[in-house]
């Protein structure tokens, strides 16, 4: 079973703000790769992230496919994922913060998924 990298969502959001959103795009790419590996198929076209610099709606479309893929992953692993895509879009349009909310929620959920199958810590030896 594939286990991705656990990350602190708050740190990710702060890094995205500091780098004017460039880290956000890199994170989208990495998360897409991880979700694809976990699902065992190309559910998210990660190459779209790099094209989204020309046209912002592409990143929204990417988020939409990621949202669908996360639903599938949740179903596969017996977890619950509530689709928030519309809220992300509305928050992006009216307040410009939708992508950060998406980042926080997706990473929090993925941390939960990876936690489920994380290998146990090595035994304590005195």
């Amino acid at each position: 079973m594939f286990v991705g990298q656990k990350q602190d969502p708050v740190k990710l959001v702060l890094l995205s703000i500091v780098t004017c959103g460039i880290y956000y795009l890199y994170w989208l790419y990495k998360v897409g790769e991880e979700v694809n590996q976990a699902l065992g198929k190309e559910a998210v076209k990660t190459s779209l992230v790099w094209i989204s610099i020309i046209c912002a709606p592409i990143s929204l479309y990417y988020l939409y496919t990621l949202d669908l893929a996360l639903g599938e992953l949740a179903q596969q692993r017996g977890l619950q994922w509530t689709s928030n895509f519309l809220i992300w879009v509305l928050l992006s349009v009216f307040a410009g913060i939708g992508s950060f909310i998406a980042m926080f929620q997706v990473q929090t959920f993925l941390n939960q998924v990876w936690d489920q199958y994380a290998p146990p810590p090595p035994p304590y030896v005195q």
Partner: protein
Amino acid sequence: MHRRPRPMSNREQRIAYVRKAAKPAAFLLVYMLICRLVTGTICVAESSIGLPCPGCGLTRAWKAALHLQWREAFTWHPLFWLVPVIAAVWLGQLVWGKQKSPRWLTVFLITCFSVFLIVYVVRMVLYFPHTAPMATNPDSFTWRFVRALRWLWGKVG
């Protein structure tokens, strides 16, 4: 008895991909139309947060290029010619590519991304916020929302 679904062929996978993309694409087209009517621009970034994005000026550049006004086209966006190249490479890979996400495609796209980013920074330094297309948009949704909040705050206060 539960039967395993037959794995999809490449062609079926592509058709499924187009089907999956059709719904959000239609939604975005409608949204862009609303943006155009309300905020005066189809650019989602400019109409939502009111700031120019790295793609701002591409439509106007292409309009000028189609009228063979090359100088004007390069002024609107110096990288307008790169867009069909990216689209052709990406779509070509999607339709005829044997491997799903080859490394060379990622490298090519990251290179284009970096070039667009560098050009964006240069244009922001030179033209923001006074010269189109790198000007601010006070009619954007966020700016309107903030103005409405201020107005409400004034009423309450």
